């Protein structure tokens, strides 16, 4: 949002550029290698088979539901973490961000012992007639678990770099906290919120390990696109590659959308930072 001032220093040593090129190749080359393996003659029939379309539809629906849950719970979490001052705040942040670094299969096991039939909450839920195991709900829970930190991180960054001066002014003018939140804070960090939501959606779309461990795999119910790819790989490598390419394309579009406009907060320009962690 700030136009780059004239005369900004941008002299990057050539060797840095060279290493950066290797780094970029490391990411791009495997994708290109996969694209080169696509059986284009069979591509359309492979990706439009009933199993593929069912899996893609399920993936899009569950990822959308997970994104809604991420926004619902992630926005308050980010606000509390960015604005609140309470003991154990750092600890809370570490735990909220944990799914970012945990292997998804660990998340799946944890969810199993929480919402599974023998789980902490699952037993009471079962008594209440709610069964989560092997249902689409389980897929959404697994995706929300792994995607929530993406929204929290993006939004907390945006909130911190936006600072709280406008809110303070609004409050002195007599606005109640909820009004400040609705009229000042949220509009201010909307770009950060949007990119966080898009990233959560993308992460949900790619979720595999937690889903496999926790939700199972049944066509149309729990078998999302990544699970379908994993299964197709057993018998039909062409189908697996074709579906992988579809997933890459969706991911590229989604991530491209989120980074198209440099959002006010997410770029978290350090000089703007007002609140020290």
């Amino acid at each position, binding site marked *: 949002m700030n136009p780059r001032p004239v005369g900004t220093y941008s002299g990057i040593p050539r060797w840095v550029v060279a290493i950066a090129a290797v780094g970029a190749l*490391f990411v791009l080359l495997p994708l290109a290698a996969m694209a*080169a393996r696509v059986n284009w003659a069979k591509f359309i029939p492979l990706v439009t088979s009933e199993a593929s379309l069912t899996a893609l539809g399920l993936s899009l629906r569950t990822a959308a539901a997970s994104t809604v849950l991420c926004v619902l719970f992630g926005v308050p979490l980010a606000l509390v973490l960015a604005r609140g001052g309470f003991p154990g705040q750092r600890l809370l942040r570490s735990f909220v961000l944990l799914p970012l670094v945990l292997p998804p299969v660990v998340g799946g096991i944890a969810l199993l012992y929480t919402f*599974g039939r*023998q789980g902490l909450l699952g037993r009471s839920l079962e008594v209440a007639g709610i069964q989560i*195991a*092997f249902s689409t709900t389980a897929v959404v829970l697994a995706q929300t678990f792994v995607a929530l930190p993406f929204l929290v991180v993006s939004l907390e960054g945006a909130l911190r770099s936006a600072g709280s001066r406008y809110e303070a002014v609004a409050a002195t003018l007599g606005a109640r906290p909820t009004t400040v939140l609705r009229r000042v804070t949220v509009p201010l960090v909307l770009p950060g919120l949007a990119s966080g939501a898009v990233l959560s959606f993308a992460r949900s779309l790619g979720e595999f390990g937690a889903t496999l461990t926790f939700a199972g795999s049944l066509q149309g119910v729990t078998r999302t696109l990544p699970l379908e790819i994993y299964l*197709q790989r057993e018998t039909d490598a062409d189908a697996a590659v074709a579906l992988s390419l579809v997933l890459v394309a969706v991911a590229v579009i989604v991530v491209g959308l989120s980074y198209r406009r440099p959002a006010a907060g997410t770029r978290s320009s350090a000089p703007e930072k007002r609140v020290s962690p």
Partner: protein
Amino acid sequence: MKRGLRAAALLLAVALGAGLAGCAAPAADGAADGAAGKTLTVFAAASLKGPFTSIAAAFEEQHPGIAVRLSFAGSSDLVSQLNQGAPADVFASADARNMAKLQDAGLVEAAPQDFATNVLTIAVPRANPASIGSFADLAKPGVKVAICASQVPCGAATKTVERETGVALKPVSEESSVTDVLGKVSSGEADAGLVYVTDVLAAGNRVKGVAFAEAGKAVNAYPIATVQTSRNKDVAAAFIAAVTGPDGRRILADAGFGTPGA
């Protein structure tokens, strides 16, 4: 476009190679230290983990100077790795189909030998909450059954049994590996799952097996063969002889595997 891709791949390989050279060096030293020692690499289906670990230990004892390196994974994963040039001397597959894939790729030295068989069984949680006593019980309403997807060997066997018995299952999940089916049963999520006899034995007392007669309709044979690109073909042949010999048979039988042709 292909040429550009290859050039880029080469560049990356050189750059990464330079970076990784440091990490690779100690391993190379270690191999050289073995002096007379040879390393035999065995790729084996995941279900063979227990018995093959014992067989390899006995083999190393009888053949001083030879180290056996075991790599366990799903048979189709191992075939993909071998097709991509993974160095292995022996391949033991959980089904004929994956061995055939490797033969089609010209990577099998001689005709594979069947060395073990495996049959399906019903795995239930220790308490057997759904009171499963037969294959037909799996189709009772409300019973949550997990099975393998038909794309993987245990799923193909499940389909055969369904056809033979005329019992159509309505599974809550079609997993991509037998381990995942077992996991759903041992965690109590599923009331029952169709797995191999050997899986139930290996799982210890977390799950119980309910044998059913119709399992005999879908006997799965495990073939073993020397990999064509092996540089230790004599050692590989000796290892295969150990697996198919009396000691190997006994170890496999203890793990629940059947004898082919019996």
